[in-house]
């Protein structure tokens, strides 16, 4: 069966080894980020942006748990000590306000933005799940024999990331290690798998 789906299920946390809530953090979001929930992210000068897809050594801070907010400036609106969320409180506006160039129109229901992005940190405790695929188009069916193997991550045509079975050169293009089959998918084409980020790929090792 041909592979390389056009769209994949977002990467998400499924469990932790310590049987507790996964460690999440809310670093400030970099400017002009439009990545989607489930995107691996990296810290650059303290601000979070989408992972560049190529930095495998200490390149991944975690996985975004929400869509990016397309902020005009890095960390726009992030409150300081005893502060409030800065104007305008969203990255989604439309049109112009007559005679008030700095005012904004906010569409009803526009996602609120605090200048932060919720991230499930890549660490030695948190186990994620993602769909498998192969950027060459080869069929991909994970098996129990793949547990313990390392793979890379690739973004699909719609901005979602998958575990790429074409990236298997350890230290060159791998960033995750498979820890198990998905309890529902098992060994089916493009099944989800359970994985952890490799220690080498973690930007902050805890």
């Amino acid at each position: 069966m041909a592979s390389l789906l056009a769209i994949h299920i977002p990467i998400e946390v499924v469990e932790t080894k310590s049987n507790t809530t996964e460690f999440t953090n809310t670093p400030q979001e970099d400017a002009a980020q439009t990545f989607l929930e489930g995107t691996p992210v990296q810290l650059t000068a303290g601000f979070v942006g989408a992972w560049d897809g190529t930095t495998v050594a200490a390149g991944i801070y975690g996985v975004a748990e929400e869509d990016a907010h397309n902020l005009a400036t890095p960390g726009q609106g992030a409150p300081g000590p005893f502060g409030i969320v800065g104007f305008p409180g969203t990255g989604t506006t439309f049109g112009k306000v007559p005679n008030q160039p700095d005012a904004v129109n906010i569409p009803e229901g526009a996602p609120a933005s605090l200048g932060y992005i919720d991230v499930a940190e890549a660490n030695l405790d948190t186990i994620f799940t993602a769909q498998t695929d192969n950027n060459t188009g080869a069929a991909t069916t994970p098996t129990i024999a793949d547990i313990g193997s390392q793979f890379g991550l690739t973004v699909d045509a719609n901005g979602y990331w998958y575990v790429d079975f074409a990236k298997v050169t350890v230290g060159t293009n791998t960033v995750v290690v498979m820890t198990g089959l998905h309890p529902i998918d098992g060994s089916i084409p493009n099944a989800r798998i359970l994985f952890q980020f490799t220690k080498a790929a973690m930007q902050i090792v805890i």
Partner: protein
Amino acid sequence: MSMVRGQYAQLMAPGQRKIFLQWNEMMQRELQYPAVFNIETITSMYKDELEFAGTGPMPLKPENTPLYYTRLIQGGIIRSIPLTYGLAARSSFELHDDDQYGVIQQVPKALARSQRFTEEMVAWNIINLGFSTVKSIDGVSLFNNQHPLLGGSVATSYSPGIGTIISAPGTYPNRPATDIDLSFAGIQLMTNQFQGMVDGQGLPVTYFPKSILIHFTNRFLARELLGSPGKPGTSTNEINSLLGEDLGYMISNYLTAIGAWFALCEKKYHHLKFVWRQKPKTDFDDDFDTKALKESVVARFTAVPDNWLGVWGSNGP
């Protein structure tokens, strides 16, 4: 972080005649921000507020000519998002058990004081930061010499007598062009800016300042300026013309700049708001494995200046 017996050796044996608990025995200040801020409660993640300007002056309709049609002007939106604040303490089972004076049992009261301080500071920082990062619905700083009016540059062209008040056509100030100290001249300037107030279309409106808000170190000066029967600081026989403005003053212990001073209309005429999402909520629980006691307080709130109308500020010189 846990509190353990080794950190509190003096609590382990009886013999202390008195233990002075600062958080219980030092008198706590009354909350100050409720005297200034309008207080609201919301039940959603955020609230949005929208502004409209009305219609401009009515023009002449020459004989047998059609009416001039106009429209309302929709302004921008300001969004306020309550944030969560929380603090917790954890004490070991053994510390809780062996404390001879019940000090560790008083931890929740200390946490409550911490919560209260943050509540105050979040509110007052709307004013403290109102010259820079805190913005009003028009997208410029809360205290600004040139708030843009929705009616545009023509809005101030027909407003009678405000040419000396405004700094740029189509704008109105709630801050001096050059910041000025709390002084006789400064208060005069402030009251003039209130007196000349226009709406977004340039139609005169009434806003009377009720109180001057000052850093506590300026209270003596405020008494002289607002209480002297004669003109303050002069040896002449002029009356103190500020008395006719019927102004009072309020001090705040949470203003960060000594030189900054502010003027406020009555609460119902201005738009400084403190927004509750979740009132302080205390909680406690035992850790099953260690039997340590965890105590916490959590609250969700924010403050927001929905509009700049009815408030005025000068950041000193």
